[in-house]
């Protein structure tokens, strides 16, 4: 399977390594050459330097042949636009988009986008943990 990961920060690099470990052929895109270091010395996948809004960059990373793409740059709106381009223009079957703002994540997931919102996950997790670990007040 061929995967493309856009944005090689903490999240993107770990997702790329995870997929590669499972046998995927992965290419990572990042604007910053230094981001390659996050993938580690053992990285055998592809790495393209450039912006994910640039279709020549996307195409040289192999989006035409990709089975899945993960969009995780540090800009919500950049991710939203790239995600839609990958789905609509390149017709990639699985496109997952990271959106930090819960309201925007909901807006686009309501419209069919596969979104992951780490902020919402944190909010839910924190609330749930507080509820679970706080003793019930004694009945008076």
């Amino acid at each position, binding site marked *: 399977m061929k995967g493309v990961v856009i944005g090689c920060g903490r999240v993107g690099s770990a997702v790329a390594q995870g997929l590669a470990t499972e046998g995927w052929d992965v290419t990572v895109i990042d604007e910053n050459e230094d981001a390659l270091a996050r993938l580690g010395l053992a990285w055998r996948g592809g790495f393209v330097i450039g912006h994910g*809004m*640039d*279709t020549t960059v996307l195409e040289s990373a192999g989006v035409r042949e990709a089975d899945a793409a993960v969009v995780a740059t540090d*800009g*919500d*709106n*950049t991710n*939203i*636009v790239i995600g*839609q*381009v990958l789905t*609509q*223009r390149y017709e990639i079957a699985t496109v997952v988009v990271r959106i930090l*703002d819960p*309201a*925007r994540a909901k*807006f686009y997931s309501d*419209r069919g986008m596969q979104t992951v919102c780490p902020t919402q996950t944190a909010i839910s997790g924190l609330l749930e943990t507080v509820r679970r670990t706080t003793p019930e007040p004694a009945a008076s």
Partner: protein
Amino acid sequence: MYVIVAGGGMVGSNSTRSLLEMGHEVTLVEQRPDRFARLEEEFGPVAMRGDATEIIVLERAGIARPPDLVLAVTGDDEDNLVISQIAKEGYGVRKAIARVNNPRNQQHFDLLGITQTVCATTSILGLVEHEMPEHGLVRLLELQKEGLIVAEVQVEGGSPAAGKRAGGLGVPAGSRLISVFRHGRTELVEESTVIRPGDQVLAVVPTGSAPELRRALLGGSK
């Protein structure tokens, strides 16, 4: 009418000023504190501080009314695209005009259905072509959705088209000569119309075929 302007740079602030002078109601949204302070000084409560790509900010600006027009004119193309999408798809705003900062992003706006866009670079290049008559072909109007341009071609004495019938010129597929302007009058072009030196020919042509049309009428590579 009611207008939300997203982005208070040169384009946004000048648009706001003009719209207010025309008597329209405007809310201008700007994120940067330094810029916002200047805008608030000039526009008072018309200026609002916030990130216009955040739904809560747009709602505070009155996106749910909805406005008659949204101008998405920040310096960031992704932001302009998202603002336009939220306005149109989320709140039924009829008209959203988006600024395209980098002409290479135009294709993304087209793909995602944001059809009303303004790109300064493309406009300036269009003017440059208009000011270079030796170029031979002037793009008068670009119909993006249709993939057509309306162009004007100036025929000279040495042009291969001069003295020939319109029907036999071998213009590119999908293109059509509409009219010739000569001696201060416009005539519709028919198969039998003979093109003469000095004619200004008006034509529609598929966007990619403009150079081919120019060669058919004017010859050469230049």
